[in-house]
């Protein structure tokens, strides 16, 4: 007998996803990866989670945030402080995420009502103000000297599985937010907030909830990141470059698609890791060029390119639209 599943989750997606996660979970044991590759995978998975979380707000709701580093940083530092107080790591990550989400609601509830680029500009202000204040507040962040966490020799191997779990939940959430009936409401809000309100969708509540979720996952990813590096420093955690990188990854991967931002994150991390070693002078310009190309020719980014390739294969043409 088939177990009861919600209507938005067809079994083949569930099975496919589960197989993928299982493969990733088995990789370290089966292939005997070097710690370098394993750690790179961990970092990629963390970036994937944060970028997916960014996409719920920036893609599904169309509210492009240039300030997500604020949540990433708050999650990281709160988690680090809790870890230093001796509490178990997962508790620290969770509280870090909740702290980040709470902070996001404080500034997000009023600013989410802004339309178009006004919201983006407000997030820049939020991000920069948070960075400055956090660098000043050394009771929380250790100031510009940063915070050091105790070095645990076995932690990094475990973190891979935690990061994998986070990415899996983030992916499932991405899917749920898009395909459930909630997803339709989000699309309605993105295309016309007022009209959506007229037909009975509650934009304020939904926007706030999506921001809360997005900030929660970003904060938890920040907490895991802090544990991973055992040393965090506010100018790095809260940096404008970090905020920008979430935007870049999501846009290059396919903004508003379910898994596109994840692919964008993978591409971004790999490019950073392998291109930087050989062509450090060119990577900024490369991102710039990619951004321009994506905006002009393929608004769905890498995902859009993949869909086009699928469409060239006539038999699949009918199904290709589904992935959007």
């Amino acid at each position, binding site marked *: 007998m088939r177990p009861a599943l919600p209507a938005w989750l067809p079994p083949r997606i569930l099975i496919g996803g589960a197989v993928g996660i299982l493969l990733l979970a088995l990789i370290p044991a089966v292939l005997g990866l070097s710690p370098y590759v394993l750690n790179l995978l961990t970092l990629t998975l963390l970036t994937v989670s944060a970028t997916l979380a960014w996409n719920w707000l920036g893609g599904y709701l169309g509210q492009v945030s240039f300030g997500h580093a604020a949540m990433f940083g708050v999650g990281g530092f709160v988690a680090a402080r809790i870890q230093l107080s001796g509490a178990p790591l997962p508790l620290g990550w969770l509280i870090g995420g909740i702290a980040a989400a709470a902070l996001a609601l404080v500034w997000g509830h009023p*600013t989410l009502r802004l339309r178009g680029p006004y919201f*983006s500009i407000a997030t*820049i*202000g939020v991000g920069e103000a948070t960075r*400055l*204040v956090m660098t000043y507040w050394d009771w929380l962040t250790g100031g510009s000297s940063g915070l050091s966490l105790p070095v645990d020799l076995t932690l990094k191997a475990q973190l891979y599985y935690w990061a994998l779990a986070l990415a899996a939940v983030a992916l499932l959430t991405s899917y749920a937010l898009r395909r459930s009936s909630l997803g339709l409401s989000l699309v309605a809000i993105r295309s016309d907030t007022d009209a959506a309100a007229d037909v009975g969708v509650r934009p304020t509540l939904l926007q706030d909830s999506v921001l809360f979720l997005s900030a929660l996952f970003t904060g938890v990813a920040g907490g895991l990141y802090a544990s991973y590096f055992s040393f965090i420093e506010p100018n790095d955690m809260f940096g404008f470059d970090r905020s920008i990188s979430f935007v870049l990854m999501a846009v290059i991967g396919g903004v508003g698609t379910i898994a596109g931002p994840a692919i964008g994150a993978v591409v971004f991390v790999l490019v950073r890791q392998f291109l930087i070693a050989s062509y450090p002078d060119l990577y*900024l310009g490369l991102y*710039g060029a990619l951004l321009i190309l*994506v905006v*002009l020719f393929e608004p769905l980014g890498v995902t859009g390119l993949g869909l086009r390739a699928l469409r060239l294969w006539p038999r699949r043409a009918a199904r290709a639209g589904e992935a959007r």
Partner: protein
Amino acid sequence: MAQLLDLLVSALLLAGLYATMAYGLGLIYGVLRIVNLSHAGFIMAGAYLGWVLHTKVGIDPYLSIPIVLGAAYAAGVLLYKGLVKRLPRGVAGGVQSLLLLFGASLLLRNGAYLLFSGNDQTVRTSYSTKALTLLGTSFSINRLAVFGIAIATLVGLHLFLTKTYPGKAIRAVAQNENSCTLVGIDVERISSMAFGLGTALASLAGLLAGTLFSFNPSFGSVELLKSFVVVVLGGLGSVPALAAAALVLALVEVFAILLIPSYLTSAVGFVLLVLVLIIRPGGLLGKRAIG
């Protein structure tokens, strides 16, 4: 008392710089409803162009203003015709233009990096460390000149927008694009002119800032952020309101040092930005129309 006078002078001079930085961003937003993130790139480019002309050709930065304005205007028109024009207009294109122009900014930054390396540069002229002393307060000649140019730009831009035909056309497009087409204004031409003008003003600000501060290829992002604050305070579009907003921001930032640690004074502007957006999205001082 003497300190208050010093702070007031600092704030005034700083306001001049902030105003020049914000005119270009405000103009492009007013006409095209586009948030020009390549503003940062052109500020940086202006600083480098001034530096190259000064150190390699030997032209004084203030004499190179026409060259920089012309070059940046051409680059702006090119950028508009090549990329920006292809985007949908209005709110739909808002986020896309944000990303597109950010991409352009990254390309400019990378270009400067390849040409000039990441090292910090400074422009040194015979007057860059000269000062006038009046009433026990010292005025940097360079800062005074920047302030003068800010005022001149304010007056010039205001007259251009209110008294000349192209200026009036720009205001007309800013107010209502559709009826412009009806009365025979070439909206495309006016838009590209506005974009070019905005870019030229950004480079002018970069040139001036380059005579005051050290700069490298990432120069301009701080300036862009300040310009945002000014434009949001001033209400996106009116030139005198922008100048007034620049003064407000400078006064708040400078006098904040009497109350809070110096390090946090730059956060004040950002907090102000968010508050104004929440309370009065149209700006504190502004009306919608430009001019």
